[in-house]
């Protein structure tokens, strides 16, 4: 997993990077590569070290060990302004006293780009994110979505080697988030830029990413395409974090016996994981369970069950055929739909 081949000529490479915050280790020997032109989404729960990862790349936090490479340059010792990275903050971090145009052009102006050229580039950048009509306004007069666009324009005006996006969509309401998500992806494809995007929203990660890096307690748990993350989660943690409701994970020995041919490598202490949509209700020789509660989400319904052995299981069923609370049901699952994890290490066994 983490013994990927690192190339220092990628868009961004973290080579054995550790970082600490107030004496607590936040990143541990992190190895990660973002290819040039790739959109990598760093996904993980709060406190996993996602933001610290970005801040280390930006140079806002120091590394304790390891090297950071950007576009083939070792920037570990460089100050933030010398790394040629742009960052979009969750809070947008716009200058309240400057107009949108001045905000976007800030990085150019302090680098002594002539005024006329800076204004022209700011306009171009604003057009790319659909904020050209806002140029004369101040941040205080903008909505959240508009501020987000301005922050993006400010990030791309300088044509940096790497874009760092720190939960940029998390302050937007759902509809706007979905829209901005699509625009962000389109913008990335248009620019062909290297981007590292941090989020705790697994849907955002699955939709947006070329590849996803799942972070847990300062370590990379798995790196892969959204398909790989979804279909072959490398560990119990990834399986549980990606997907909503989370994947069911049960002891391999007991409460539920999948049908079909078991995969190889079922020896030893194992756990079986299967997503709610893989659960078959009404399987005649399935495990007995009772229905605790049912949530209807449009045409789907999620049935929260308890097996006779006491284990909870969530099943996704068509809303039209949903069981009622208190019903006794029989639950089955096919081996083909299961993921097998080692019970002690939590790592995936077999394919």
């Amino acid at each position, binding site marked *: 997993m983490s013994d990927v081949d690192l190339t220092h000529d990628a868009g961004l490479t973290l080579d054995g990077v550790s970082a600490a915050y107030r004496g607590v280790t936040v990143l541990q020997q992190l190895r990660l590569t973002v290819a040039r032109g790739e959109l990598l989404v760093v996904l993980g729960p709060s406190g996993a070290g996602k933001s610290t990862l970005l801040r280390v790349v*930006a140079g806002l936090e120091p590394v304790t060990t390891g090297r950071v490479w950007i576009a083939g340059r070792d920037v570990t010792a460089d100050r*933030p302004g010398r790394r040629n990275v742009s960052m979009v903050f969750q809070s947008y*971090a*716009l*200058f309240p*006293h400057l107009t949108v145009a001045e905000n976007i052009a800030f990085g150019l102006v*302090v680098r002594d780009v002539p005024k006329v050229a800076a204004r022209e580039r700011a306009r171009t950048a604003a057009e790319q994110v659909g904020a050209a009509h806002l140029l004369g306004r101040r941040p*205080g007069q903008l909505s959240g979505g508009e501020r987000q666009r301005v922050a993006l324009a400010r990030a791309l005006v*300088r044509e940096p080697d790497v874009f760092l996006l720190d939960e940029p969509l998390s302050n937007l309401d759902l509809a706007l988030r979905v829209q901005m998500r699509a625009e962000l992806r389109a913008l990335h494809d248009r620019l062909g830029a290297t981007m590292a995007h941090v989020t705790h929203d697994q849907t955002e990660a699955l939709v947006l990413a070329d590849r996803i890096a799942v972070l847990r307690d300062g370590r990379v748990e798995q790196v892969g395409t959204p398909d790989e993350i979804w279909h072959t989660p490398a560990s119990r943690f990834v399986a549980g974090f990606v997907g909503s409701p989370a994947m069911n994970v049960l002891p391999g020995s007991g409460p539920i016996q999948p049908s079909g041919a078991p995969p190889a490598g079922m020896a030893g202490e194992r756990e079986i994981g299967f997503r709610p949509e893989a659960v078959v209700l009404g399987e005649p020789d399935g495990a007995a369970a009772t229905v605790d509660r049912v949530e209807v989400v449009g045409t789907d319904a999620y049935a929260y069950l308890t097996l006779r052995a006491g284990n909870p299981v969530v099943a996704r069923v068509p809303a039209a055929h949903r069981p009622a609370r208190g019903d006794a049901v029989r639950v089955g699952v096919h081996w083909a739909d299961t993921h097998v994890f080692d019970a002690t290490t939590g790592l995936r066994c077999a394919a």
Partner: protein
Amino acid sequence: MLAPYLVGLVGLVLLPAAVTLALAFTEYDLVNPPSWAGLANVSELVTDPVFRVALTNSLVFALVAVPLRVLLALGLALLLHRRSFGSRPARVAALLPTAVPEIAYGLLWLWLFNPLYGPINQLLRVGGENGLTMLGRTPPQWLTDPTDARAAIILMSVFTMGETFVVLLAARRALPADVYEVAALEDATGWDVFRRVTLPLMAPVLALLVVRDLIASLHFSFVPAFVVTDGGPPPYATTYLSLFIYRTGFEYLRYGYAAAATLVMMLLTVAAVVLQWRLFRRYRAFYRL
């Protein structure tokens, strides 16, 4: 709930102000009942050379001391807002002179300013010969030369900027960290950061502090001039409006005339408050978030 405050406001502020306003148009020596004088006091003020000197002194004092105070406070606030080694005692040191009672503060400076054995001039004489400074010049005659005396009063007032310092310290700390991180990512230099980020973001607070200090400067020149220089060197080098009013009212017992001069001071204050108001409204529109 408001009653105690209202009693105080009416009894201690509004009523005396109204009485002063009325007295400004009378002749009153605190012994005989006031007699109506019409605009006589006002026309006397216009031609009174002493009043003119006092007014000029007050305005010059305000125009020099207030920027100095605010600049020093801003400099210290920007220097000491971080939690770094030694910054805590330094902050306390910056604040301490403000905590000294005014009269004691004045007496202290009287000693500091002593031309012969005062520490300031002793320090200035280090490295020089025959009582001259290192550059071969006569050290300042703090309390006897008119210009040096005015400088002395300004110097005294500069060190009592503790309150301004604390406000600016808080204002600096309240600025968001992320805009500074953006500035760092754009490789803005210290001067650029100050000019393009810190100063504009603190401008509303600074403007209000300047106006507040302008108003206060009409008052805080009183004790130093009263205790340290006694309004001199003669005749009126450090006689400020406040001291002029005090002398006219309580020493020369011309209460009506003093009231008229107070009115001028009040008008200056009102002008400053109007300025403050307009600044405040402008910034509020500007920084709406």
